């Protein structure tokens, strides 16, 4: 699933000492998990590599990084799947 892979990336990028499954789909990344701008860029690089997609400059918005759910929706849209991956 996209959500699971993004949570694994978050754990890696943020050096979190938690199991990826403990991160909620709607947990706020900036205010809750402590994501910052630099970590967000690393997350983008990870997402691009993991899913083989390219994130354009205009797509790098605060809204994109709101939660695992918003990132997952974005990835699905880029992959053109719409549903589950």
């Amino acid at each position, binding site marked *: 699933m996209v959500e699971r892979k993004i949570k694994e990336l978050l754990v890696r990028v943020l050096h979190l000492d938690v199991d990826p499954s403990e991160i909620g789909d709607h947990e706020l990344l900036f205010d809750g998990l402590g994501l*910052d*701008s*630099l970590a*967000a*860029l690393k997350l*983008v*690089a990870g997402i691009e590599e993991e899913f083989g997609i*390219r994130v354009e*400059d205009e797509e*790098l*918005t*605060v809204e994109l*990084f709101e939660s695992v759910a918003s990132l997952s929706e974005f990835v699905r849209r880029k992959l053109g799947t719409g549903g589950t991956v």
Partner: protein
Amino acid sequence: MKEVKADRGEIKRPISDSFEVFQAACPEHRKAIDFLRSWTPPEDLEDLDAEVLIEHVEYSYIAKETVPWGSRIGEELFFGYVLPYRTWAEPIERWRKLLYSELYPLVGRSEDPVEAAMEENRWAAGKAHFEDIPVTYKSPLRTMADGCGDCIDLSIFLVAACRSVGIPARGVFSPWMPLGHDGTHMWTEIWGGKWHYLGSCEPERVPDRAWFSMHIKRAAKVYALSFRGTGSMLGLGYCPDVWVEDVTERYTTVGTLRAKVTADGTPVPGCRLYVLVPNSKNELVLVASSETDAQGSVEMKLGSQVELYFVCAGDLRKNCGQFVYIDTGRTEEVHLKM
């Protein structure tokens, strides 16, 4: 921005005796020398060393003639963003020959100036890193020697590195960025068919990506710095003045502020209008200023992702003005009474 008549004649100085050596230059180089001298601030002109200037011109043309993209850079871009020896207010120094000698072997065979600039950014990151130090506007070689600088120093350094191999480059400045940054920031833009931005000495795998990518989409104002007169100066007071091009619209959505200033019902021409934004501490930060025209009016574009602006006229210290909301694509009319 402060509106200023871009009249070369206002700042041009007669050729001094020390510039006799210019007469020996070829017509093409003389035109370049004349351009640089024309836009050098009057206070710097007397100290401008002829040998330094000539080296800048000679190596600008050497770069143009030796890099694959050199022939694709038109005169407007070459004069405006390759030839200048300075980005903002740093000391004038002899950096071009040294940087060309170091960087041409690294990127001189690249076909793409954007790829070349990104490679240079990786090189620059190995030479200098960011440190939160007092703003001093260091020269490129000073930053390289120190191995560190603030975002302004690092941008001056990267711009010089790019210009040294004929890549049009300029510094870009935002007086305030939100999302926790809460302050000014400066980065680099390079030309490769269009302007791309790079975090200075902060390389990424692709252009137009940096840690501040999200921040600048909510910026109030973004200014590209120019050596050549643009008709507008930064005019913020807390940093050295410089010609600027308003590039806010390239980074974020904008709306228009139209302000009219009157006193006792009469329009006030030549009155300074200040635009500020509240930061996270609810302090007001100046992001733009401009003078009213003959009808006592000012019109300017402002980033529309900023929650609230404060606009005042005449005297910044009195803070006599009003808060305004700027919506994307719309015009907000404000009437300020002095």
